[in-house]
């Protein structure tokens, strides 16, 4: 069995800490840009032009219907091959790109649901005041949609923290990658439990934060 879990944790905590920072960094990037792209995809998806909305539907279906790991492999190997000009760019970014796009597909479906959940009368009232379509979207629809979808969105973000573990496969320094580092020191099973424990603490803390935010949001009802 070798060393105990806590022994390993105390001895190598800087490595885990750096892994955690990597995980949080990648999750934040995926969530932030995934939400931006996802919002755009949702709006395109809601277009009255059915050809335009079909593009978004295909986008969402492909990204949700294939495994993230496969998407990461394709991004990692295929993009630099297909576009040699991009060869000089660090491959980390391609893995991140896959994370972002994957996240955007899930987020866009949540946002689309949220936009649809806003009462049509709200849109009519805004338009009848002479508000432009884009102002109606940003000032009336999206703020109410966000409130409706906050729990679903938060769950997606928390899931994204876990999804980033796949990035370790590509030698990106995040939590899961610490396993590879410590395996070189013949520590095989202890890092796995430590990593699992850290993920658990992070997701529980995030869930708690989201609950507090929801409570504050509910105040304006």
């Amino acid at each position, binding site marked *: 069995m070798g060393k105990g879990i806590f022994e390993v944790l105390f001895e190598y905590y800087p490595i885990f800490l750096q892994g955690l920072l990597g995980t949080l960094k990648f999750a934040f990037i995926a969530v932030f840009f995934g939400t931006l792209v996802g919002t755009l995809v949702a709006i395109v998806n809601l277009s009255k032009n059915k050809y335009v909305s079909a593009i978004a539907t295909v986008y969402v279906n492909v990204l949700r219907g294939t495994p993230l790991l496969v998407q990461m492999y394709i991004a990692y190997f295929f993009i630099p091959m297909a576009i040699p000009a991009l060869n000089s760019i660090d491959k980390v970014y391609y893995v991140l790109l896959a994370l972002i796009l994957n996240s955007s597909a899930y987020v866009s479906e949540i946002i689309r649901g949220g936009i649809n959940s806003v009462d049509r009368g709200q849109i009519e*009232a805004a338009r009848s*005041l002479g508000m432009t379509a884009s102002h109606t979207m940003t*000032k009336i629809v999206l703020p109410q949609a966000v409130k409706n979808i906050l729990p679903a969105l938060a769950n997606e973000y928390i899931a994204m923290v876990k999804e980033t573990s796949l990035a370790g496969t590509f030698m990106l320094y995040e939590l899961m990658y610490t396993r590879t580092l410590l395996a070189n020191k013949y520590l095989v099973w202890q890092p796995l439990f430590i990593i699992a424990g850290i993920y658990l603490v992070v997701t529980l803390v995030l869930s708690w934060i989201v609950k507090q935010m929801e409570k504050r949001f509910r105040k304006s009802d």
Partner: protein
Amino acid sequence: MANKIFNEVLIETVDLKKNFGTLEVLKGISEKIYRGEVVSIIGPSGGGKSTFLRCLNLLEEATDGKVIFEGNELSLKNTDINLHRQKIGMVFQQFNVFPHMTVMENITLAPILEKKIPKEEAEKKAMELLKTVGLEDKVHEYPGRLSGGQKQRLAIVRAMAMEPDVMLFDEPTSALDPEMVKGVLDVIQALAESGMTCVIVTHEMGFAKRISDRVLFIDGGVIAESGTPQELFDHPQNQRTKEFLAEVLY
């Protein structure tokens, strides 16, 4: 109020038609609304009155025909509909106040955003309007804490803040508790008496009779009869009008 003279056409519809799928809701309505006029629209449910009203600011896109507002044909591609809608206030049956904004924000949002009115000026104007409907002490509340009648008065103020040339009311009291109706009707009446052009779809026959210059009876997608309140309520000519009034005036 029947002695006023109206000579400037504000809104004109020409052979306005609207289909929902295969259902013909409006079968060709040609009508003029004059500046300063108070026009009530009555008729049975499903007859097309709300659809007609909603076509006036293009919330419903007409299948055929024209809507001309202040000389501009609204349905033309190069018409900036937002600009014209700023001058066409609308009040809805379901209030449609913005729940995520305070009373003040509800009122000042569109003037600040679309008319580029400075915030302070917009808020000053909003306070004046709120006083006229007795909501000045609710200015910082969210709509969730207002009664139905207060929400509807807020909706009226919100529309008025854009300084419209006409106000459209789509069954403004139909979703209200009975004891809330009078407060809202009083506000509409005050507006009408101030010279605001009003088009009101309503089931409040007594109210329509009292404040209207003209009443339209819409049934089966056409204006079956129109006239002064006295003509229409006291001496209806059309058989359908007679039947409808017999049903609602019991």
